[in-house]
């Protein structure tokens, strides 16, 4: 059963006279509890796909269904409500509100939804502890390291029990140690809480944390690779790199 489904999705950008085809009739589905990595060369349409899946942008044609709702046909306000309740985002640049503490940043989606924050306090504490920042709840973003900021962002992405979490290069701005911590967290959310995650990345090592890797080129999905997780990461990384070489990515 897929949580998220894209059918024949095309995205074109009009740049004056020139039409840029970012996605060409892409079919894509994510099953509940899946952790999918999207890979591909720069300009292949990874971010575009992610934006469309999260309802941040509209496809030129095709249909996207998220948690049973045809988001490509909803009004802006309706899509916004879907994002608010069903989607979590993790950005490359963390995008925390600098004026709010870590805990407050995590609580933000609930606040926006008009929920009573008092009743949700325990959940927020739990989340912060899960990402290893139980002691930093009161810190402002500028008092946290990049890795810590991204972990706050992860807690924020999961606070509304989303149907799906979308992450664009979540480790792109982090050193490898912090990156690993973030990836482990994502994996943990996926395994323990049956959360569904789609993550865009350049990095074969990051992709090896997923259950499946989807390869994009020139706006087309050209290959899918399941990850075995048998002999540790090194084996999986080699498998991913092999596919990349075959596809001349």
């Amino acid at each position, binding site marked *: 059963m897929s949580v998220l489904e894209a059918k024949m999705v095309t995205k074109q950008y009009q740049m004056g006279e020139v039409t840029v085809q970012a996605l060409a009739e892409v079919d894509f589905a994510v099953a509940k509890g899946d952790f999918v990595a999207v890979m591909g060369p720069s300009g292949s349409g990874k971010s575009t796909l992610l934006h469309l899946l999260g309802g941040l942008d509209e496809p030129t044609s095709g249909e996207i269904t998220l948690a049973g709702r045809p988001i490509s046909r909803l009004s802006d306000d309706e899509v*916004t409500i879907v994002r608010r309740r069903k989607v979590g985002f993790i950005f490359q640049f963390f995008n925390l509100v600098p004026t709010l503490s870590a805990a407050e940043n995590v609580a933000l989606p609930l606040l926006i939804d008009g929920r009573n924050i008092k009743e949700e306090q325990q959940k927020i504490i739990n989340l912060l502890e899960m990402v290893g920042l139980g002691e930093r709840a009161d810190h402002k973003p500028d008092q946290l390291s990049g890795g810590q900021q991204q972990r706050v962002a992860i807690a924020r992405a999961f606070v509304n029990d989303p149907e799906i979490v979308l992450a664009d290069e979540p480790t792109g701005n982090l050193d490898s140690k912090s990156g690993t911590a973030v990836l482990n967290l994502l994996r943990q959310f996926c395994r323990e809480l049956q959360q569904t995650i789609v993550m865009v990345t350049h990095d074969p090592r990051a992709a090896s944390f997923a259950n499946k890797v989807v390869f994009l080129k020139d706006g087309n999905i050209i290959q899918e690779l399941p990850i075995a997780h048998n002999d540790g990461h090194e084996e999986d990384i080699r498998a991913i790199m092999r596919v990349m070489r075959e596809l001349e990515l």
Partner: protein
Amino acid sequence: MFQLGFIRFNSPLILVFRNLWTRWVRTLLTMTGIIVGVGAMVAVNTTNKSTIQAISSFFDEAAGRSDLIVETAVSGETFATDTINRVRRVPGILAVAPSIVGVTVPAAEAAQWEQQLSISGGAVPGTSFWLMGRDLEADTAVHEYNLSEGRLPTAAETSYNVVLVEDYAADKGIEVGEDFAILTPGAGAVNLRVIGLIAKEGIGITNDGVLGIANLAVVQELFNLTGEVNQLELVVDEDIAADTDRLEALRTELDDQLGTSLTVKRPASRGEAVANSLGTYQLGLNFFSVVSLFVGSFLIYNAFAMTIVERTREIGMFRAIGMTRRQIGVMVLLEAGMLGLFGSVIGVGFGLLLAQFLARIVSSFSGQTVEQVTAVPTDLAQAIAIGLAVTIVAAILPAIQAARVSPLQALRIQANLDEGRWQETGLRFGPLTIFATLLILYQVPLRPAVTFPVGSNAIFAMLLGATLCIPILTKPIERLLRPFILLLFGNEGRLGSSNINRAQGRTTLTVAALMVGISMVVGIEGMTLSFETDIMDWVDTALGGDLFVRSPLQMRPDVEARLLALPEVTAVTKSRYIATRLFSPDGEDEYAIFNAIDPATYLNVASIRVQDGPAPAELVQQLATGDAIWVGADVAQKYNLHVNDEVVLETRRGRRPFRIAAIVIDFAGGETTTVTGSWNDLRRYFGVTDVSTFLVRLAPAASLPAITDTIENDIGRNLNLIVESKQEFEDKMRTLSAQAFSLFDVLGLIGLVVGGLGVINTMLMNVLERTRELGGLRSLGMTRRQVRRMILAEAATIGVMGGLFGVAFGAVLADVFLVGLRAVGGFVLNLQTPYTAIAVSFVIALVLALAAALYPAWRASQVNIIQAIKNE
């Protein structure tokens, strides 16, 4: 246990609060716009009201317990004592207190006496000494005398005994038991014996305390007015006094009974005439205070638009995680509301402080001391409401802009906000708006009632139009300025000056804020200069004469012959001012001054600038024939009068019709309605033959000091003549107009302050937004000093542009003000270009912009390279 209190919010309000708190520099700047705007409004409003309040409470206090006052319809004249008995017989009247005033000067000061003018055209209180004769027995029912020393005169007193006001006596060093000499019309200097002192309160505040009280009969004797009084103060039965309708009925009844030569008034209504004479002036002040608020709203808009730019990424993230457009918009408006509320409350406080200062200026020239500044709570509440509303309205566009931010902005490294199409909008609407408003201001005939509201709104529309024109012109002007900036700031200057094209909206509004400030200064100076120039011109040509001969007492007409007998004197003409009431064909009636001139000699000394009517020679001929007057263009405008219309004047012989023979350019009365008629009519209808002023023309070679000495000390020995040269008179007028316009200068200054704040805001914003870029430049080897110079160059470009636009718009504004002065006050003036003000304003704009950029420039130079390039 883990601390659970870490989440301190439960509503989106917290986001707003945190934002205001964390970005406190911005918050403060935005708030200053509101504070200054609301403050100016409150200050002007409070000052105006306090002035009126002071005027009416002055008349209240001086009135004591009296409920009604009987005076001659032509105020200041006398009437027979037998009226007292007629009034006493009226049922409901409990007490009648008569009084008479002899206006004079202490003999010791006669030589230094000078006529003091006030903006309302009347004399400044306290310039002359008032000897008031009272019936002290009847007075017990009306006034309480707070005697601090000695005793009061008795009702039977026949010796020349007087009571002075304590402060005045102390000022002059006079003690009880000593003599005090005053001038009298009959007997020259007369010694009065000071028998007591009263406090400066109640009746003691009359004429600012420059007052002596003697027995009625004594004053009547000294001033040749036996059997005459000026005024009766009446105390009415309590029940009637407490009931406004019954009091008014009694007043009308008495008024009818006493005939047209006398009027019956409530004490408070005497203050109204004085208050009315300040009307145009107060209207002008109100207008400027609204302009200040308007400029303030520019600043507010600018600041909000900037925070939106700055927070684009953050807003994009909010949208991505599920905030609707509406929620975003509401959040921005909430922020505006909060700032507006705080700013307005502080603004009210600032306004009240400023009002103290303005009240002092008003006191200095209006002839009314405004000691206490009192604010009406509902007015303050209204000011807060207006401040709040203006802030929210100013934030509407930024709120819409914020709501339009795409969630994708959150994912960009460098967020870029669509700045809107300033240039396109400007091209489309800017010139059109200006053209339309000019059309309204100059071509559409407006009814007087709507002139002020329509006119001031048109000026606002024009301000908007001018603002819209700015983005069209910034690029070409920047290009023109570049060589100069390069000269001043070197290569950094090139970088800085071209930066102003980056954020068009921001540049536009900053230039606009400066423009409004500068244009207010230039406009005000233009108006002041035109006013002064035309008055001086009028003094020169129309008023004519080289000398004015006056006296603290009125003079006998035969002085004319004695003046003419002097070899240096080539011509003399006499004039006399007398108070009257004017009834216009439209049914308006108001206090006025009848200025009687001598048609036979007037043109020998003075000239007339006729705007509508016969040539001067013919005009004086018509006045000589009688029952004709001329009026100034201001009066004609005010009462909608045309040549050959008829107005009615109150005279001693009752109400008489007078034909308008001509409309002339005349500033004689200041803001008080003045009509000019003939000497003959003065004698016939007012029964007056003495003279207020002789205008004297001298032979070209005459020596001014010598002739002054001859007139004052030979002819004038016993007549107490005072000579004033035209130069002295001109200086006096100049000082008066400078004082009157100084209030406007304060408001212009406020406009400049707001403009400066706008520059700080913009430059700071530019610096914050470009932290990364600045870090990059530093890493490439730009020194801190170079960074500072670059920022300053940018500010200088903005300053020069603000100056250019401000001067251009100010010139238009000055002309519009003159049109407004003509429409509202009836002054017909020719526009003078205030070159000094323009040059100074220009320098001010530049210096202000540079000064305002000092802090941002310093901030820019402190940018930490590592952090800046890491800064996301």
